């Protein structure tokens, strides 16, 4: 960790990422501070004859609307962007946590369980890894009833399709860790497999799993954004950056701010998480640090 803190990129990334998480967590407060919410229409701020572009320069940025308003509806962009952060980050973090949990469980079970458990679980992991994630996510999300809680569903779908990598890494690490002599020593001192998993294996897994998870997070964010972009993500009026970008494509020239605000934020957030992941990897796993993939 100390090594990571000396990394300028990591520091920048960590600060930015934390800031973004903070923004997401306090979205209602921030919106309230701005005196706005993400649903109220402001028709008076739109030029209806020209398709509903915001009146005024830079997408209608003003003292009331710090980032302007959404074309077509006049909803406050600042409020939408901070709530969007909540969805984008929430889904990504939720999915990552779920993936790590499933991956750890399956991975250690495969690594420590007998030959049969390993064979079956490894096959399962292979299957999950062979799933075309985006393709299946689209199919799955289109099928489920639209009134199910969407962010939760998104996180679950992403996680259910994406835990393979974590499981594989966990299994691989567990297999090497279990051959370590200290595991044998623990067994000899009478520890059961469960205790061995908890006290000897898990601590050894934190570094590789953490570094992997750190990279999973931005990846999941991209997936969420992509799904929302394709229209199978969160449902309006709940905003998400991907969805905002998707609707912004038609406003590219008429209201460039509408593209740049969510696009820029998405880019910055992803970049900061990637920087964090990179820094973590360099610090925790020096040998692998170069092969960021």
């Amino acid at each position, binding site marked *: 960790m100390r090594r990571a803190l000396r990394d300028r990129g990591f520091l920048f990334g960590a600060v930015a990422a934390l800031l973004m998480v903070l923004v997401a967590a306090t979205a209602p407060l921030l919106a309230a501070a701005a005196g706005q919410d993400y649903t109220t229409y402001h028709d008076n701020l739109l030029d209806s004859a020209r398709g509903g572009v915001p009146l005024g320069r830079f997408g209608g940025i003003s003292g009331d609307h710090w980032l302007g308003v959404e074309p077509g509806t006049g909803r406050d962009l600042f409020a939408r962007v901070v709530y969007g952060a909540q969805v984008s980050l929430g889904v990504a973090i939720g999915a990552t946590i779920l993936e790590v949990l499933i991956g750890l469980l399956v991975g250690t079970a495969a690594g420590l369980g007998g030959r049969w458990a390993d064979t079956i679980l490894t*096959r399962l992991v292979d299957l999950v890894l*062979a*799933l075309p994630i985006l393709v299946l996510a689209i199919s799955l999300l289109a099928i489920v009833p639209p009134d199910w809680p969407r962010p939760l569903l998104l996180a679950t779908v992403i996680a259910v399709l994406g835990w393979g990598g974590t499981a594989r890494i966990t299994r691989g690490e567990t297999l090497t860790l279990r051959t370590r002599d200290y595991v044998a020593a623990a067994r000899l001192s009478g520890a059961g497999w469960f205790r061995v998993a908890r006290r000897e294996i898990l601590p050894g897994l934190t570094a590789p799993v953490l570094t992997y998870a750190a990279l999973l997070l931005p990846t999941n964010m991209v997936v969420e954004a992509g799904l929302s972009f394709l229209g199978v993500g969160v449902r309006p009026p709940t905003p998400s950056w991907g969805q905002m970008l998707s609707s912004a494509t038609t406003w590219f020239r008429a209201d460039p701010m509408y*593209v740049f605000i969510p696009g820029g934020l*998405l880019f910055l957030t992803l970049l900061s998480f990637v920087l964090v992941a990179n820094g973590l990897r360099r610090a925790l796993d020096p040998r692998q640090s170069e*092969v960021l993939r």
Partner: protein
Amino acid sequence: MIGYLVRRIGGALLVLFGLSLLLYGLFYLAPSDPAILTCGKGCTPERLAEVRHAMGVDDPVATQYAHFLQGLVAGRDYPAGPATRHCPAPCLGYSFETDQPVTALLLDRLPVSVSLAIGAEVLSLVAGIGAGALAGLRRYRWLDRVVNGLVLAGYAVPVFLVGLLLLLIFCVQLQWLPFPTYVPITTDPLAWAQNLLLPWVALAVIQTAAYARLTRAGIQETLAEDHIRTARAYGLPESRIVWRRALRGALLPLVTLTAIDLAAIMTSAVLTETMFGLPGVGQLLVGAVNQIDLPVVVGVTMLTGVLIVAANTVADFLYAAVDPRVELR
């Protein structure tokens, strides 16, 4: 070898079986009824029942699935007005929406996705290995930094963001390139490349950075290995060491990655194809999902499954071919 192949194919079949089962199950559970869409506005219940029967979706899901399997292995016949239509094995059925054979649809769309994937892959390999090798040999410090920055940015820009920007810059503002449409390579290779250039670049931005990084790391890692020291100790010239030894070691992971990425691009091209309006497999899927076009959804998923499994197998073979230490088992 043969055992390996048999097991690989067996595993693949299992995966595909599981996938199709999953999809059938899900679509059965889903509240949507494809017949309603097909039947159209103002469809009366009696008419709907007739249409459902004609489409074969009034059977229990198990029967439908059994028919599907039968079609896959042995082909099947469909009622089609005056005569029946025979759908030869491997039959994935007919699209609910357009009544075209799904296999034909897939074959028709595949060239687009393949063009997209191969072009992007070639582009990123050439650019990535080139930049990576130069950076890895530390000939140009700045290049190292650029590659480093690019790879991070590559992770941080979703492909649709890149695509959006490229379209805006090159098609709308500068008007240097046409809005991408697909022109088959057989019709006009130049137009093919010209139209696909933007999608390729959009896809390649990310890959290139990753490849460059991997090559760079690989070269540095290999250069630090003992056998390079041996080569130096025996007076081998540096150029020979780099090109014959270090690059060889560094490209090893790339070889397998290429195969897997190729499949990955093809399966994840949904966004790119939607973005650029290219009539590929991904676009087919998005349309089919919206129209509850089960046969097409199953077909696309199966195809992507096959592609991924095939790519992994090819990757294994390639790995074994380039690394004498690896034996297939």
